[in-house]
């Protein structure tokens, strides 16, 4: 660092040049990211909307119209996929967040045992969902699978977890909770670490029980963390369908079909790009709606303390 004393005027001129140049520099710096963003996030939205509005029937040229959306909303398979997704959302978000909070509260300590237990919950996050799918395909095999094998000791009959339409979605949800709870736990652990211990100490001195302290101090302060995890979990509901595709293909009787697996089926199996595009538009609209209400939450949530 040079020990030069600069006159004020000399300092001012470079600053002015710098702010004019800042706009161009910023653009140049942002260009790589923006390029990919536009090519693979925003242009696709425009493109898929256009495709959805192009109504094409077998052997005929396309015309612009809402025919694909009309077909989509009168397709019982889509209605079923939408309903399943809603049920799946509740069945995965609620247990995984509750469990994640429970795990975080119980495992805040620094002992070796708590460290080990935390790791066990985090392990599923480190493996691909399709790996979980291959393992659970065996675990849930009727009769010979691990679950039925051990449940038989309690006298339970062979249960067809993935083949019974009333059970299959539950099984898929359980696998999702298994995969995500540990990941959400990490967010809660970080959130809990941000609660000032003085607050707890003061409350204890005032005679508050552990439960009261949890209710009045911890949970409110975890509010932002809750909100953030909720948003992440909501996105996962729409995006994590690997196990559905690999294990059940949306069956039996379409009972495990979710929005994204429906899109995949229409695009790839039924060769119906119009319907797939319309369904994509609907899913994107849902997430954009979510974005509108959660932008602030997201912004706050993605901090990192090194």
């Amino acid at each position, binding site marked *: 660092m040079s020990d030069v004393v600069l006159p004020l005027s000399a300092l001012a001129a470079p600053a002015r040049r710098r702010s004019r140049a800042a706009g161009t520099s910023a653009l140049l710096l942002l260009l790589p990211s923006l390029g990919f963003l536009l090519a693979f996030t925003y242009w696709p939205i425009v493109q898929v909307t256009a495709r959805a509005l192009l109504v094409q029937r077998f052997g005929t040229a396309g015309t612009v119209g809402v025919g694909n959306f009309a077909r989509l909303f009168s397709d019982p398979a889509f209605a079923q996929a939408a309903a399943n997704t809603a049920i799946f959302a509740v069945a995965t978000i609620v247990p995984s967040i509750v469990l994640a909070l429970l795990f975080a509260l119980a495992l805040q300590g620094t002992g070796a045992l708590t460290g080990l237990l935390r790791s066990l919950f985090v392990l599923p996050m480190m493996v691909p969902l399709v790996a979980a799918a291959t393992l659970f395909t065996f675990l849930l095999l009727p009769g010979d699978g691990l679950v039925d094998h051990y449940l038989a000791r309690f006298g339970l009959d062979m249960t*067809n977890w993935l083949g019974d339409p009333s059970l299959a979605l539950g099984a898929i949800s359980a696998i999702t909770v298994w995969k995500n709870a540990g990941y959400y736990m990490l967010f809660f652990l970080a959130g809990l670490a941000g609660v000032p211990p003085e607050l707890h100490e003061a409350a204890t001195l005032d005679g508050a029980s552990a439960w009261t302290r949890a209710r009045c101090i911890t949970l409110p302060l975890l509010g932002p963390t809750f909100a953030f995890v909720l948003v992440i979990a909501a996105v996962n509901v729409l995006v994590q369908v690997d196990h559905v595709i690999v294990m059940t*293909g949306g069956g039996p009787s379409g009972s495990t079909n979710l929005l994204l697996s429906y899109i995949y089926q229409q695009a790839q*199996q039924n060769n119906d790009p119009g319907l797939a595009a319309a369904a994509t538009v609907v899913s994107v609209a849902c997430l954009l709606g979510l974005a509108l209400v959660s932008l602030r939450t997201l912004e706050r949530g993605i901090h990192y303390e090194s």
Partner: protein
Amino acid sequence: MNLTRRAALAASVASAMVASSRSAFAATELDLFFPVPVQGKLANEMQRLVREFNAAHPDIVVTPVYTGSYDDTNLKTRSAIQAGRPPGAVIMSANFVREYVINDEIIPLDPLLGSSPADFMAKFWPALRINATENGHVYGVPFHNSTPLLYYSVDAFKEAGLDPENPPKTWADWVDAAQKLTKRDGSTTTRWGLMLPGTYDYLGWLTSALAMSDGGEFYNERWGGEVYFDSPSTVGAITLLDDMVHKYKVVPEGVTDANACTSAFFSGRTAMMMLSTGSLSFVQEGMKSPFKVAYLPFNVANAAPIGGASLIVPKGNSPERQKAAWTLIQWLTSPEISGAWSRFTGYFSPVKAAYDLPAMQDFLQKNPNAKIALDQLNLYGRSWFATYNTVGVRKALEDQVQSVLSGRAKPADAARLAQQNADVLLKPYVEQTALKMPK
């Protein structure tokens, strides 16, 4: 540039030219998409076969690509075609060939046959012709085929007082046998009379088998726009399944997959199973106690739809690739190779001549089960259900039958809903063909 450098440059240019001209005579490369739709170590065997082909044909290099189930193979092939990178040849489920023809995605093989379509198809079993041809042109060369079979445990039959040499012939016999074979311990069933796969693709096939055994056509063989899901024969088939699950309680409720069926058969938790002949070798290997196979029982008339796959060549391949693909197809469907594959897997060889070879005759003598399967094909074989948007239309039925198997729908309603949903899916094609009137 000095002399040595110029010489070096000239030399490198010359060698580059030689290299590129050498590559002009290089082997034709082609990828073969193949599925493994039934149980067994078929993927390894196919890869071994391809290595053998490559060794015997130095001017062709085939890359075998394992593409999963029949449905997955269909997906991957279509994606590849739409992305402008069609595979050289595909072992495609025999009943998807029609749809590829409708969508104009595969080439007719007539120019490559070397004889008239009729003469060419005469080399194959008659039951295979409908799925292999469309409008008199050959589009899919049969590669391996199957029919549904009734597998049953000899010990279980003896234990229940049934004669293993006299398997059930009619639906009435079948239900009777199943009831005798089912063992209960209080409210738990320790042995089921019958199990069958209820997963996508398998269930549609088996339902069509039952509907045809109930006298029905199930679908329009000549035109891909019509299915008969709510005709009495199909309703009868679905009702049989419903009764076996809920009335006689000889079949477990819900959707079972093929692996669960065979596991149960091996461990004695089911006495009979309705399964593809394609699994015959697999069952032979895994079943420790004696078992036999029988024709599918009938209600109105014996019938067994074929299953299996045909070799197709997608459009968009160069003429050299098409010729190379044809060489591969001929090799794969030669009596020796076809016979060997059949003996390894349990599928039939579609090639009649394969059964004239001593190796095959020997095999059939030692394996009466394989002989029974072949006889059913020749006596009662019928074509496999194929329409416009085959998978969607098939699922329209399967979703409903799965509901019935799980106790959530009644057969008549399921059949009606299946027909309705199928008609919606077929409508675009129907409007452009049968309902397209001259202006």
